[in-house]
């Protein structure tokens, strides 16, 4: 029931925010905040209730839904989904905070879409019925589309449509693969089922498994995104309002990584193993290519968007190395990147709100004008380049450590980014914050609300870096179980 409540709170919170605009224009944001606070309490409660449990799945809810096709309303939570839901809620607060003054028009509809988007994302992290998973996967797209196309910047329409078409078309490939899986299950047992546990470990023809795996893989790498499917991301991130960018970079990209971890490798261990060299190559290419591209941008938000692609390349590398260390590194990167990218987008959004430009050429010398904002920017630029002691470093380090055992060459290549990332991180500082001040009139520094929000992210980032075993412990059982289940089916097939 708790799991259902996690989705319902956001869903009804969204509706309430929409309706509450009638009473007061500021009511929606308070409603959204209240809904998120309630959600936060629920997540903590869930964690506290089940902290001592030994089973991998800390909560499970299964209701019949579309029985004609054996589709169930099946939600379940393990350590992995718990930490990702936590991230979603925290970044939900950040999105509300960064939209507090930025969004002035049609606030009700804005917060409605924001919360719907989060509800869909939480649904994705919790769904263990493949149909329900796809359902939530699609449901989170449309609100994001509205966020970009209504409250976005100058070129919003094209960016929004591009985003939807990329994710939707790749999603349909995944839908085909899901349906074929269910049909194969039907062939074996005579009944349809879309349940994760029933489809897990089902013997598959090698060739069929490969194609099905590819269907899922494309859908998830578009969302992740990885080269060559990343082209929607810089546009969408650049044009989205700050709150949208925070959700998009912080949470939505993680759904792709989560899908790879939860579905692609466990469902098709053989095929994934076969495909791993290609996937890892794509990951390494994304890491390097996006880092170079980031360096070449003059638009601040575009630059940050490319760094996202680069960081998510590490996740792809880690997942397909399929080594416990690398997997833990991938999860750590997901969380740490969620925090640092969200923070950077909030800073970029704050600058755009004040300067009405995202071009770094028009900035310069901002440290004098807005010292608090600049200090935060420095902190997160350094977090993003992977300073030891912060979460991003730990994640990337673990990925490289784990992947090195699997593929030495690709890992060594990907590690070159350690040279490139300081370059793009420091270029932000150089261009935007150092040098002579060029502003004709003074601008406001971070308000108290912004400082609190950013402070939380700073604490989270340091906590992830210095005290990682809490997160690693929480996620380890689920990762280990995923590895075991895929290893077992792998060995029985070989016999």
């Amino acid at each position, binding site marked *: 029931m708790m799991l259902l409540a996690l989705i319902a709170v956001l869903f009804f919170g969204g509706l309430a925010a929409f309706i509450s605009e009638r009473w007061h224009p500021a009511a929606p944001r308070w409603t959204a905040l209240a809904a998120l606070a309630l959600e936060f309490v629920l997540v903590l409660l869930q964690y506290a209730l089940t902290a001592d449990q030994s089973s991998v799945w800390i909560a499970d809810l299964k209701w019949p*839904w*579309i*029985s004609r096709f054996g589709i169930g309303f099946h939600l379940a939570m393990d350590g992995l989904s718990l930490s990702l839901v936590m991230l979603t809620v925290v970044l939900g607060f950040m999105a509300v905070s960064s939209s507090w003054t930025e969004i002035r028009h049609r606030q009700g509809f804005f917060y409605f879409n924001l919360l719907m988007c989060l509800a869909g994302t939480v649904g994705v992290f919790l769904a263990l019925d493949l149909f329900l998973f796809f359902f939530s996967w699609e449901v989170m797209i449309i609100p994001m589309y509205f966020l970009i196309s209504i409250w976005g910047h100058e070129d919003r329409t094209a960016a929004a449509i591009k985003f*939807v*078409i990329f994710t*939707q078309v790749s999603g*349909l490939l995944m839908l*085909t693969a899901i*349906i074929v899986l269910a*049909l194969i299950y039907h062939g074996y047992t005579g009944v349809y089922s879309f349940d994760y546990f029933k489809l897990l470990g089902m013997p598959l023809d090698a060739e069929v498994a490969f194609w099905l795996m590819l269907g899922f893989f494309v859908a998830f790498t578009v969302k992740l995104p990885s080269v060559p499917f990343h082209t929607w991301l810089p546009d969408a991130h650049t044009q989205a309002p700050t709150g949208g960018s925070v959700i998009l970079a912080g949470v939505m990209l993680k759904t792709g990584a989560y899908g790879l971890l939860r579905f692609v490798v466990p469902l098709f261990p053989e095929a994934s193993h076969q495909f791993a060299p290609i996937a890892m190559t794509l990951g390494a290419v994304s890491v390097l290519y996006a880092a170079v591209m980031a360096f070449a941008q003059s638009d601040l938000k575009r630059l940050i968007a490319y760094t996202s692609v680069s960081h998510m390349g590490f996740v792809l590398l880690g997942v397909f190395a399929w080594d416990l260390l690398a997997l833990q590194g991938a999860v750590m990167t997901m969380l740490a990147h969620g925090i640092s990218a969200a923070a950077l987008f909030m800073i970029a959004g704050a600058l755009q709100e004040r300067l009405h430009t995202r071009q770094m050429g028009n900035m310069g010398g901002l440290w004098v004008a807005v010292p608090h904002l600049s200090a935060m920017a420095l902190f997160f630029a350094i977090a993003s380049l992977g300073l030891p002691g912060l979460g991003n470093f730990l994640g990337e380090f673990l990925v490289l450590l784990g992947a090195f055992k699997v593929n030495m060459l690709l890992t060594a290549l990907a590690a070159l980014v350690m040279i490139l990332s300081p370059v793009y991180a420091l270029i932000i500082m150089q261009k935007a914050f150092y040098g002579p001040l060029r502003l004709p009139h003074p601008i406001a520094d971070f308000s108290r609300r912004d400082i609190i929000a950013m402070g939380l992210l700073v604490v989270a980032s340091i906590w992830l870096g210095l005290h990682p075993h809490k997160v690693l412990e929480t996620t380890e059982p689920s990762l280990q179980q995923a590895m075991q289940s895929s290893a077992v089916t792998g060995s029985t097939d070989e016999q």
Partner: protein
Amino acid sequence: MNSSQLIAFLPVICIAASAVIVMLTIAIRRHFALTCLVAGLGVLVSLLALMAARQQSPVYVTSLVRVDAYGLFAMALLLLAGLVVIVFCYDYFKDREGENEELLFLILTALLGGCVLVTASHFATFFIGLETLSVSLFVLVGYALGQSRSLEAATKYLVLSGVSSALLLMGMALIYSECGQLSFSGIEQYLAEQEIFNAMVLTGIVFIVAGVGFKLSLAPFHMWTPDVYEGAPAPVTAFIATVSKGAVFLLLLRFFLSGGGYSYVSMMTVITVMAVLSILLGNVLALLQDNVKRMLAYSSIAHMGYLLIAFIAGGNIESNFVVESVIFYLAAYFMTTLGAFGVVSLLSTPQAEAVELSSYRGLFWRRPGLATVFTFMLLSLAGIPLTAGFIGKFYIFAVGADAQLWGMLLMLIVGSGLGLYYYLRVIVVMSISQESGNYAGREAVLARVSSAVLVLLTLLLVWLGVDPIHLMNLIHGV
């Protein structure tokens, strides 16, 4: 004809009777609202008669008509769509000068044709039903007499429909000359006995498919669609897009399932080509439209292409699943199309239709309710979850995957990607802020009944998108 046959045939009789009653009402007193009411009641009575007919089915009413669960469900679908169209017609035409009452009579005769079509089990009823439907539609399309567009559309539809009927008759004649049979079951029996491939029958089937292709606006027989959709009054367009196409498609499926058409593999190749062309041409041409009605016309071509995927799958997998998918898809498509054209007709008057994309600018902020309904309808056409259109698309995917039509599924994915672009474009236009009130003078008059129906359709659409199991079970029984 015994009593059980009579009861089974009662829905069709009711529709015919209400057409006559409407005619008499008009003769006694010309009153538009009254006529609408009588016609609507007639349709409702026929819907009730379906309940009674259900007890008797399946039964042959003479060798011409077979009333079974399939036909009854199809009739229910057509009648409900007809009812919605009548409501839209009321609000659309109520302020128009001139004689509008005959409109209802024509809608009822068209419905009669459709009902005969979906229960036909014989070439005679096939042709009679189709002609009754088509002849009524010529007049309906050209009903707004004063406008050249409408007249042009009616003429086009008349000529092309005539040609397609001729093709159809020719096909029937060819098959008859070979089989000596006019009933579907007789033809199937003859084909089952024949072991060698029969060129004459094949030619006949090709002619029939071509004739039906015109009615379904499948590429390459789709040329008339955008012009007729654009020229016809919006409620009539809704009628053509749903009742006319739905009835013809359901008939085609029945003909192939019970007439043994699936045994001709080369026929499937022809239909596959038509499906691929329809999906590609429909979607690509829809991209170029700035006229909402034309865009919906091209999108309907594409949707008929999607539906053909399920139809083609009928050759490989058990027919129950195919029938279930086709009916569900059609039900979702009916709701969505009726809703979309309902919004168009609510924004229009017979003098000036709201067809240009620019007239939808900022609709979200001017008339949020209507824009929300339209958004749901467009999302359903695009097959996005939370709408019935998604479940329909899921069915097509499931059927296609079951029959292993990978190429067709790829087409479906490509088509959906293209489709998203033009559906979302309308949504974008609706969400553009526009504070200036230069549309105030052109706002259509308040239409309570139509708005209520639209809200109902939207709720139904979402309900079926979230909890489709009830409709699935209902159709599964068919």
